[in-house]
Structures are given as structure tokens and as C-alpha cells.
């Protein structure tokens, strides 16, 4: 989406005021630990996303962007902590400046500011993973499958898909529960309606006949059919002699309701019900705590078979051969079959009871409404409490555990509390003492009550129908979502897998037949890799740490390629190849250069060898790096830049701080000598730990330079170019005098002496030494472009010593071939 041109950081993290020009090219940031490399990475991430990943998330505790994003001395002025980034957006062919400060991290100042630019930067802010650290590599490679799935899904922004899957499942479950409730309410409404009508089944013929019997009494037109619009008391309102309103308590209907409720309760005390309860109790005794655990285990084992990915146990991630795992689990399951069957049968028996409970709950609720309608009111609190208890019983049956509670309820169910019977008797007495209605009033009350209950039944039926449709719709949507997303994710993971294998094979030619498998399965993502054709294993099983690092990098790059496609134009690799050996780092450099030519990488490392490797492969250009030497809280990071060094050395001497000046000069000389040796391909005695001292480096760098000047002079002589011969002779003489003035060649003999001696000098004694080194080092830079001079070779044959601008150009080709010798 973007490439970075330059960055300016102020009062941010460990940085006071620092600018860096990246020029849309790959760029390396090198320096020992604690010199400010991460400050650059944080600043890039902050400018682009408004966040610093390292300051948020697990393990960051009380650390926050607002409080700890600014430099420690500006912690109370977050508005001073800002990053200004100049980026190029290829799609729009625009250069844009972004300015963001820690006080308002979500607000970015853009110049120019257009909706198109904001849209692209908003998309970019969704991708903090443009920055990859070694810590993050590990989470992709070594994480357990469930966690890896989450990490990869988060990287690919797929976690929203998982959330949506969970939401759809939740919605489907919720509407199924609604359906069950609607079914129960409909069943209760049918009972209540039937009782009011005095019929056994709510069917059209019976309803019409019963209604017409009353309509005849009232001289109302008879009903012929029963539709959804039919009103059983149609015509009552227009009949002058009749009021549509029924009595407050319709005696006949109330008595029928009371009778129904009593029958429902009597069923609880019946032999049949008692037998059902006893038989369930007898079965429940079989389930001890141990058995119940086994039942849970049985569910777990069945699920584990479904979740098994042919590689490792989905519970503990221990590796299994597929057949052995299935055999092992099936053997365990056989032992649970008996328990499982009993539990299933028991569930069905409990459902039977549950239906009776629902029926009684409905009828008792109906009669409880009579209490306040009667004059004087009748106390029905026992009935109301009992209805609530029946609801709790249903919940307990659904939960099943604790078993002791379920058993206790089954033992209590056929004992109806005496207070209930007293409430019902009181209601029955009050209703019975109501005066009998006349035939016409009775018919009117009958039709009005029946119609009220028919309306309620129709509402319940409508709700049931709607709930059923909703449940079906939700299930279809959920199933379709699962099928389609699984299919699409399978394809995505397959593509990533292919891309990953291609990149990894590029890095590890000895593993030419390398294969990998990303296996998504029920919210997990298995990641197994081939080990020299001996089978698939988790990456941490046999591969070295270095291989795991490179796997992590390859997986990251494959994922980013898939995520952003052609828009993968910028990435920060923060010290990601710590464990990779130098041979493979060379391959990584080539891979990044060749496979991602359109991606600008910012690479941080504390390893100077790695930095040189990146330069020699051409992953980064000669000037596209910064080398930090130290960091202080007052100044922030300081780079190895000669102008600063000489000024700092002079400042030290002005304060008579020779010891510090001596140490700084030695460190700088070590740094710059390594650079010169690299540029001139000087012969240096090899050290396995790469810890080269100044004595190992500088004398060899000087010898190499002297040799190339002489070689250039020989070529000039072969061409009879006397002016150039004279120039090179003069250069050689000046160089050797400068070399002599520093006495540098002695150090190889006794490297431990000289620097201590420096520290014992006073400022005036040290100044000539400083001046001598400054003069000596000037021979290794072009006085025009200030870039280091470097050797150009073809194979083992050295051709030229030159600088970037071309002003310095010492050609070694002798007369046989065309040559040109120019020296400033």
C-alpha cells in the first residue's frame, strides 16, 4: 500500500529528535542492544497505525501508549511526542506526510488530505502485523494448534469470521430454545381452550358444533367453517339484547379449569406417574459421581475423534499415529457404551415427565388468575409458588446434575403440598357459590370466553409457526455459513501452505522435497512439516531453532502475501533471524530481494555481520542503513556518523576527558575498520566468535588500501599515463605518512597496550593523535560524495576501487584491455 520515504521522530519512546531517510528502499538499522533500534520500529508502527503493539496486550500490565509512549522526560506532555512520516502511495502515485502525536493517537494529520488517501491509510492501520518481531515468529510456529489458529486468524483478519460463526450458532441455539417454549405455550393454550369449549380435541368439527350449540340459544347465525378469521362470538356486539362482555368469572369455564388443574395434579399422585418416577430413580441410582464423570468423558472422547487431525491429540497435542489414536479412543468408548445408552434412555424418560410438568404448570397458572377476580379475593399464593417450583424443576431436569438434587425432586414430585389443595378447594368453593347463569347468559359467557381463548391459541400457534420458521432459517444460515467459510478457509490455507513451502525450499536447498501441512479443523490450525522425508512432525520436534525461525519468517511472508497481495509493499522485520546461521541469512537476503522485489523491508539487527551480508547481497544499498553506537536518556540514539564523532571527541578533550575520548576513538575505529575491511575485502584473521579487535582489522585495512594504490599505479604505468602515475605516487606517499603518524601498524603486535596508554595522555597530547586518525580515515572516503570507497571485483579478479559518485576510480586493468585511470 505504501513505501516510506523518511521519518522524523520527536520525544517518542527513547528518541529525542531523530530523522532518517529511507528513500523507499530496503533499509537496515543496526546496533547493539539498547541503542534505540526498537524506537525506530515503534515509531514506524505508531505513525502508520496509531498504536505500539509492544505496549499493549498480554504481559504489558500497567503500561500504556499514552503514559509510556512519550520520552520519559516528556511523559507529562504527550502532545510533544510525535512522529512525522513521509510515504509514497503507489496506487495513487502520491507522496503523503502523516503526522501523529501520542496525545491523540487515533487522529492523523495528513498532507495532502483526501478521502482516497485516508481510505488507504485506514486500511493500513488495520495491519499492525506489517511489523514482525522474533517473539511473534515463535507464536506462529511453536504455538499449540488452537492458539496458532487464533494468531493466524488474527493476522489474516479472520477472527471476525470466527466471531460471526459463534454469533450465528448462538442465534440458532436461542431460536431453538424459543421454539421449545412456543411449543409448550401452544400446548397449554390448546388445553385451556379445550376446557373452555368442553371438547376433547381442538378440531374444526368439534369447535363448530360446540359453538353453534350456544349460538342457537342466542339466535345468532350458525358458523359453517372455521378459518383464521372466524370469531366464535361473531354477532354478539350487534345483538341489542346481549352484551358482548362476559361475566368477570365465567362459572362453567372456571369450574372446568379447576377440574383440569386437579386432574393434572392428581396425575402426579397416580400410580402411573409414581411408577415412572420410581423407574427413573432406579436408573438414576446407576449414575454415581464416577459414572457421570465417565459420561462427560464419553462426550469428550467422541468430540476428540471428530477433532483429531491425523497428527496429534486435540486435547493435549501429543502426537499419535491415526489408527492407534482411533483404536485407543474407540476401546475407551466401548466401555462407556452401556452408560451412554442408559443416560440417553433416562433423558427420554425425563422428557416424558417434563411434558406433564408443563401441562400442570399451564393449568395451575390459569386457575391462579381466578384468585383476584373473585369477590372476595381468594388467596392463591401456594399455587403461584408451586408454579414457580415446577419451573425450577424443569431447569434442574435439563441440567441433570447434581444427581442428588434430581433424585430428591423425583422423590418429591408425587407429593402435592397440602396448601395447594387448600387453595384449590377455596377457589372451587368460591366459584361454585357464584349464581348459575341463565341459558342465554351462559351461552354468551361460553362464546366470549371461548373466543378469548381461541384468540390466545391463535397467537400461540402463530408464534409457534414463526419460531419454527426462525429455527429452520437460523439453522440453514448457520450450516451454510459453516460449510462455505470452511471451504473458503481450506482454500486460503492451501494457498498459504504452497507459498510457504516454496519460500522455505528456497532457503533450504538440502530439503528440496520439503512439504508442509496447514490443517484447519474445528477452530484449530495444525501445522506440521516434513523432516527429510521421514514423516510430518510439529516444527519444534526435529528442526533446529534456526530452521524454526526461518519457518516463522516464511509463514509470515506467505500469510502477508496472501493477505495483501500486490499491496504488500512495506514490512518491518525486527531482529527476526537471531538463530539463523550466516549461510542461511545469505539465502534469506536473496529471498527477500528476489521474491519480494516490490516490498520495502526495514530490518533491524544487533549483528554487524548480518548487516554486511545484507549489503553484499544487495538487499540493502550502500547507504541504506544506519548504525547506532550508543543510546543515552538525554540524547537518545546516536549513530556512527563521522561528523558527530569528531565533534564529540573534541568536546571530550575540551573538558579534559581523555579517558572517554580514548574509549570512543577506539570503538569508532573498530567500527569503521570493519566497514573498510568489508569494502576493500581485506584479509583478516578469522575469528569464530566474530569478535574482531581493532588490531585484527585496521592494519589489514591499511595494507589492502596500500596494495590497491600500488596496483593502480602499475596499471597506469602499463598505459604510460604519467600524470596518473604521479597522482597515485603522491597518494601513496601521503597515505603512508598518515599511516606512520598514527603508529597503527604496531597494534597487531601488541593490541593490549596502546589504548590504555591513550587514556593516560592529557588533552594536548591526545589532539595530534586524533588529528592523525582523522586524516588517515579521510583516505577511505570520497571527498566529493563523502561515501566510502569500495572494491569492485569480478569473481576473484579485482577490477576497480571506486566511490558511489565515480569521482574516485582507480582501475587495475593493465594495457592489454581498455582501461581508464582517474584519481582526484
Amino acid at each position, binding site marked *: *500500500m505504501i513505501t516510506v520515504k523518511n521519518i522524523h521522530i520527536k520525544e517518542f519512546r527513547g528518541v529525542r529528535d531523530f530523522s532518517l531517510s529511507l528513500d523507499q528502499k530496503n533499509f537496515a538499522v543496526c546496533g547493539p542492544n539498547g541503542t534505540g533500534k526498537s524506537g525506530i520500529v515503534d515509531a514506524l508502527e505508531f505513525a502508520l497505525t496509531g498504536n505500539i503493539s509492544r505496549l499493549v496486550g498480554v504481559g504489558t500490565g500497567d503500561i500504556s501508549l499514552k503514559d509510556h509512549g512519550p520520552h520519559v522526560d516528556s511523559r507529562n506532555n504527550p502532545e510533544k511526542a510525535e512522529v512525522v512520516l513521509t510515504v509514497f502511495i503507489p*496506487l*495513487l502515485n502520491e507522496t503523503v506526510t502523516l503526522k501523529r502525536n501520542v496525545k491523540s493517537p487515533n487522529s492523523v494529520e495528513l498532507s495532502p488530505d483526501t*478521502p*482516497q488517501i485516508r*481510505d*488507504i491509510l485506514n*486500511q493500513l492501520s*488495520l495491519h499492525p502485523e506489517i511489523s514482525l518481531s522474533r517473539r511473534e515468529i515463535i507464536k506462529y510456529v511453536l504455538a499449540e494448534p488452537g492458539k496458532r489458529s487464533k494468531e493466524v486468524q488474527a493476522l*489474516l*483478519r*479472520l477472527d*471476525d*469470521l470466527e*466471531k*460471526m460463526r459463534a*454469533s*450465528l450458532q*448462538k*442465534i440458532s441455539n436461542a431460536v431453538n430454545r424459543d421454539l421449545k417454549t412456543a411449543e409448550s405455550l401452544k400446548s397449554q393454550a390448546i388445553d385451556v381452550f379445550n376446557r373452555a369449549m368442553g371438547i376433547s380435541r381442538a378440531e374444526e368439527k368439534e369447535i363448530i358444533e360446540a359453538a353453534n350449540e350456544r349460538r342457537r340459544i342466542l339466535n345468532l347465525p350458525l358458523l359453517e367453517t372455521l378459518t383464521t378469521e372466524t370469531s366464535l362470538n361473531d354477532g354478539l356486539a350487534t345483538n341489542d339484547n346481549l352484551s358482548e362482555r362476559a361475566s368477570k368469572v365465567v362459572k362453567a369455564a372456571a369450574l372446568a379449569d379447576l377440574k383440569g388443574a386437579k386432574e393434572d395434579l392428581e396425575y402426579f399422585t397416580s400410580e402411573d406417574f409414581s411408577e415412572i418416577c420410581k423407574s427413573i430413580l432406579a436408573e438414576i441410582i446407576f449414575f454415581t459421581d464416577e459414572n457421570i464423570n465417565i459420561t462427560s468423558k464419553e462426550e469428550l472422547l467422541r468430540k476428540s475423534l471428530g477433532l483429531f487431525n491425523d497428527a496429534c491429540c486435540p486435547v493435549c497435542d501429543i502426537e499419535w499415529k491415526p489408527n492407534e489414536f482411533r483404536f485407543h479412543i474407540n476401546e475407551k468408548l466401548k466401555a462407556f457404551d452401556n452408560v451412554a445408552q442408559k443416560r440417553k434412555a433416562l433423558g427420554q424418560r425425563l422428557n416424558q415427565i417434563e411434558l406433564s410438568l408443563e401441562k400442570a404448570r399451564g393449568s395451575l397458572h390459569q386457575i391462579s388468575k381466578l384468585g383476584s377476580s373473585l369477590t372476595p379475593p381468594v388467596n392463591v399464593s401456594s399455587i403461584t409458588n408451586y408454579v414457580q417450583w415446577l419451573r425450577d424443576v424443569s431447569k434442574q431436569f435439563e441440567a441433570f446434575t447434581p444427581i442428588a438434587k434430581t433424585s430428591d425432586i423425583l422423590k418429591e414430585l408425587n407429593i402435592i403440598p397440602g396448601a395447594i389443595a387448600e387453595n384449590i378447594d377455596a377457589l372451587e368453593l368460591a366459584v361454585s357459590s357464584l349464581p348459575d347463569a341463565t341459558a342465554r347468559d351462559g351461552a354468551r359467557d361460553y362464546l366470549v370466553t371461548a373466543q378469548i381463548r381461541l384468540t390466545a391459541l391463535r397467537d400461540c400457534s402463530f408464534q409457534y409457526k414463526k419460531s419454527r420458521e*426462525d429455527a429452520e*432459517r*437460523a439453522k*440453514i*444460515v448457520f450450516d*451454510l*455459513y459453516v*460449510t*462455505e*467459510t470452511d*471451504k*473458503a*478457509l481450506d482454500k*486460503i490455507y492451501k494457498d498459504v501452505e504452497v507459498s510457504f513451502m516454496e519460500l522455505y525450499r528456497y532457503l533450504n536447498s538440502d530439503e528440496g522435497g520439503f512439504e508442509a501441512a496447514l490443517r484447519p479443523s474445528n477452530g484449530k490450525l495444525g501445522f506440521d512439516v516434513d523432516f527429510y522425508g521421514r514423516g510430518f512432525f510439529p516444527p519444534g520436534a526435529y528442526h533446529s531453532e534456526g530452521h524454526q525461525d526461518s519457518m516463522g519468517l516464511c509463514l509470515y511472508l506467505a500469510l502477508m502475501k*496472501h*493477505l*495483501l*497481495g500486490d*499491496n504488500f509493499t512495506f514490512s518491518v522485520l525486527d531482529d527476526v533471524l537471531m538463530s539463523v546461521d550466516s549461510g542461511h541469512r545469505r539465502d534469506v537476503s536473496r529471498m527477500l530481494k528476489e521474491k519480494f522485489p516490490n516490498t520495502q523491508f526495514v530490518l533491524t539487527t544487533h549483528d554487524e555481520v548480518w548487516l554486511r551480508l545484507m549489503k553484499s547481497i544487495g538487499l540493502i544499498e550502500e547507504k541504506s542503513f544506519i548504525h547506532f553506537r550508543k543510546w543515552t536518556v538525554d540524547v537518545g540514539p546516536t549513530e556512527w556518523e563521522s561528523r558527530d564523532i569528531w565533534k564529540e571527541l573534541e568536546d571530550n578533550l575540551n573538558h579534559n576527558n581523555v579517558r572517554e575520548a580514548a574509549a570512543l576513538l577506539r570503538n569508532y575505529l573498530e567500527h569503521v575498520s570493519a566497514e573498510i575491511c568489508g569494502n576493500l575485502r581485506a584479509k583478516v584473521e578469522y575469528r569464530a566468535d566474530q569478535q574482531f579487535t581493532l588490531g585484527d582489522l585496521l592494519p589489514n585495512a591499511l595494507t589492502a588500501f596500500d596494495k590497491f594504490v600500488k596496483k593502480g599505479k602499475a596499471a597506469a604505468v602499463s598505459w604510460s599515463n604519467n600524470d596518473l602515475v604521479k597522482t597515485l605516487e603522491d597518494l601513496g606517499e601521503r597515505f603512508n605518512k598518515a599511516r606512520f603518524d598514527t603508529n597503527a601498524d604496531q597494534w597487531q603486535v601488541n593490541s593490549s597496550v596502546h589504548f590504555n596508554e591513550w587514556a593516560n595522555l592529557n588533552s594536548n597530547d591526545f589532539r595530534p593523535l586524533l588529528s592523525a586518525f582523522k586524516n588517515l580515515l579521510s583516505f577511505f572516503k570520497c571527498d566529493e560524495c563523502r561515501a566510502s570507497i569500495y572494491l569492485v571485483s569480478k569473481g576473484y579478479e579485482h577490477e576497480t576501487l571506486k566511490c558511489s559518485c565515480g569521482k574516485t576510480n582507480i582501475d587495475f586493468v593493465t594495457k592489454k584491455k581498455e582501461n581508464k585511470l582517474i584519481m582526484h
Partner: protein
Amino acid sequence: MLEKPLLCGILHNEIKHGPQPTMKRTYMPISDQVLEAFYEALEKRPDLIDLAARFRAEPARTDAALKKIIFGEE
């Protein structure tokens, strides 16, 4: 060129908030690609064809928003 889901999203926003500045989408996130496959599967079912349009028009994915999409306005 605008992808269909984004186009629907913009139209939806325009209906709700008035005309929006023209936007150019640089890429289609993977989650959108996956969802697109789901919407296309919905479109193939005559009984669910309306759902695809509703999913595209409503970018929110909260439980409440999803319920509204699946079951309508009620």
C-alpha cells in the same frame, strides 16, 4: 473498480448519511472474500436470496445486527 460488498456498504451509508465522497478500495480483505463466498451461496437459495443483500447492506456483525439481518425488522 469497486467490489460489490463495498459498493453495497457505500450505498447503505449514503441512504443513512447522505452522499459520501468517492472511495477507491485497494484490496479486499480475506474475511470479506470468505464472506462473499457465503453471500453467493445464500443467493443460490431462492428462500434466502434476500439475506445476501441484507448482509451486504449492513456492515455491523453484532448479535443484534445479525438477528435483524436473518429475521428481518421485527
